């Protein structure tokens, strides 16, 4: 009886067992190379295997002129801080959306607002204002300026 209610509450509120499932999915996604199209894009819920992101950061940054030490996730910048986009980790659809809206590598931007409680981040980029979910913002590596 308790097993059922546990499972049900886990399902409803996304506690432990739920996260295990998410991690398994993300693990699969991570093992693919980033140029392969992925069917399921991880949403910006960001219950993500952090090691996977870090590995991907490492792989991508090796091709760049930047060392991983000077880069931080976009989500780590404070309000009013400026930065430069260096790379993004994610599936084809996410990368393509970011590019379409002007977040291409080497583009400078400014953080205007950070939402309360892990809310989205508003950026000023190419004289437009964009809101980006916190999950996506932690998959974009930037160089603070």
């Amino acid at each position, binding site marked *: 009886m308790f097993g059922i209610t546990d499972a049900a509450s886990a399902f409803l509120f*996304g506690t432990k067992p739920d996260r295990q499932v998410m991690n398994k999915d993300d693990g699969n996604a991570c093992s693919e190379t*980033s140029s392969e199209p992925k069917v399921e894009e991880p949403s910006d819920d960001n219950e993500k295997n952090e090691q996977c992101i870090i590995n991907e950061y490492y792989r991508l940054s090796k091709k760049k002129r930047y060392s991983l030490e000077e880069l931080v996730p976009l989500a780590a910048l404070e309000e009013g801080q400026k930065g430069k986009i260096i790379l993004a980790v994610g599936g084809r659809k996410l990368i*393509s959306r970011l590019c379409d809206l002007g977040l*291409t590598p080497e583009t400078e931007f400014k953080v205007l607002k950070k*939402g309360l409680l892990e*809310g989205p981040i508003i950026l000023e980029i190419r004289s437009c204002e964009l809101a980006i*979910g916190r999950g996506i913002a932690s998959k974009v590596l930037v160089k603070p300026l």
Partner: protein
Amino acid sequence: MVAEKDVEQKDIEIALVGNPNVGKSMLFNQLTGLNQSVGNYPGKTVEIARGTLVFKGFRIEVVDLPGIYSLSAFSDEEVVARDYILSGSPGLIVNIIDAMALERNLYLTLQLMEMGVRLVLALNFVEDAKKKGIEIDVNSLSRELGIPVIAINAVSGLGISELMAAAIKYATAEPPRRPRYGKEVEMHLSEISRAIRTTDFGIPENLSPEWVAIKLLEGDPIILERFPKLVHLDHKIKTIKNELERVHGEEPSVVIASERYSAIHRIVKSSSVLHASPITTGSEKVEALLTHRYFGYLILLLVLGGMFYSIFAIGGKISEIFDGGFNLLIDLTRGALLSQGIAGPALDLLLNGILFGVAAALSIVVSYILLFYLALSILEDTGYLPRAAFLLDSLMHKLGLHGKAFIPMLLGYGCSVPACISCKIMETWKERMILGALVVMIPCSARSVIILGVAAEYLGFAAAMGIYLLDILVVVGIGRLLFRAMPGESVGLIMEMPRIRMFKLWLVLKKTWLNTKDFVFIGLPLIVAGSFLIEALRVTGFLDQVVLALSPFTYGLLGMPVAVGISIIFGMLRKEMALVMLATYANTLDFSSIMSPVQMAVFTIFMVLYMPCVATIAALLKEYKVKWTVFIAALNLAVATIVALAARLLLSLIF
């Protein structure tokens, strides 16, 4: 527009393409006035509006394509726009761009140029840009791009005649050539396009081989689907992609995007001046306040509260007056018909069936739906919706949804019809479908009457609250289930924050009218047919038999009295009638005399979840088409049965 009647009328078709929030629909309305029709693109739920105008002896058909940021074919809107442009049907594209966000807007322009289509740029918001310190030299922009650029003001209509003249002039000209990208990329592009030109891959004449080459390099998801023979180039493409990735350290699609943006940067730099100290304008101060971490929420509360209050206060009043008027009309008609010697079943059918149905439908439409559409159009046109979504995003994430989903959910507690309609504010089709299935399960005010009239009255306040809570749990659970089970991608929240601006009353009114009209066409016949059917059943004495026929379900499965069948039948028409009809049918106002406490709980739970009313079904049909509407209704019925059955079994164990 001057309408000139010419004997030799020539036809041109132009398509309007542009980013969202650049004044595209404003321009479309300036061009075509009231000569327009809105329809869905075949097989897709993307709306395309068409209109015609006559200008200098030309009959110009204007097609308003959905607002898009790119032609990368990752969303339905992009696929529809791309297919339409490639179909060769528009003779010329009018690309509307926002002078205040020139770089981002020109990204789409460059993609259009890659396609090799004839193009005229309409530069909107030039005055606003000047106020912000951005001065654009239209002539040099036109020269740099190799495309005619016309400065317009979509609000006042300034420059629109020049725009149409340019459209006619260039509709037969050579298409412009796209800007050159980096040497590396150009070399690979010409290599691939040469291969495409020399071999027959079944690609139509009008498609630029260079464009196909760019799409292949980008790894476009659709191009291979359309032209499967291109698979023969697979090996070559892979080698080139690897080479590009090795040299640039980026994926080829990112390389191409960067190339486009650097070409744009070059063009913008040589044709516009940015003054050093842009002034903070009044609207910028408002924007900062609307997303403020404390004041933002206060304003949100005021806006939503005010919207709800005015819709339900004004709507309630209108509906009262309306119902009063219709009751009077029904009485008068009854008198008139009786004096004509019409009585009995025919009279009942006419009055209770048809006239009552019309009254019910119109009173919902005029009092709530019209007002709701009005409020939604205003929130949309002022640019407030993205702000609300920004503020509520983290809260809705706890429920597995995104920020914007809050508004339909909240509306659901008022009336399911506007709640279903407002689901269209979600960006992706998947989110829209899931939210549509969820909002109909939220107890609307009519269902609150049942909860309060049965559960709160006889079982106590705690039981009523328990049912509300149970409903929330069911909605969250089903929501999570649907998100997992349904195919389709979601990329999380990436949205533009458009500038806050004053809405244009005539545009808002027009939008409201078009939406309401659509609803009336679907909803009115359904509601009238429904009430006619039930009245016909009653008059012919079949109603009892239907109620009895439901007994294996109501009595056998759920253990409720047979009489509640009447509530189930009338609840499909209007939920608030469910209790009244039960009282009449069972001939008592004391429900405890016909139902035990457990039965009452099961009854309330079932009635809250079991099926959207006819008006809601009409709204679902309008927004979601038949298949998904049937699915939602079936889902509700299944969920209601399962939850009610579980409640029956659990409660009878305890009591």
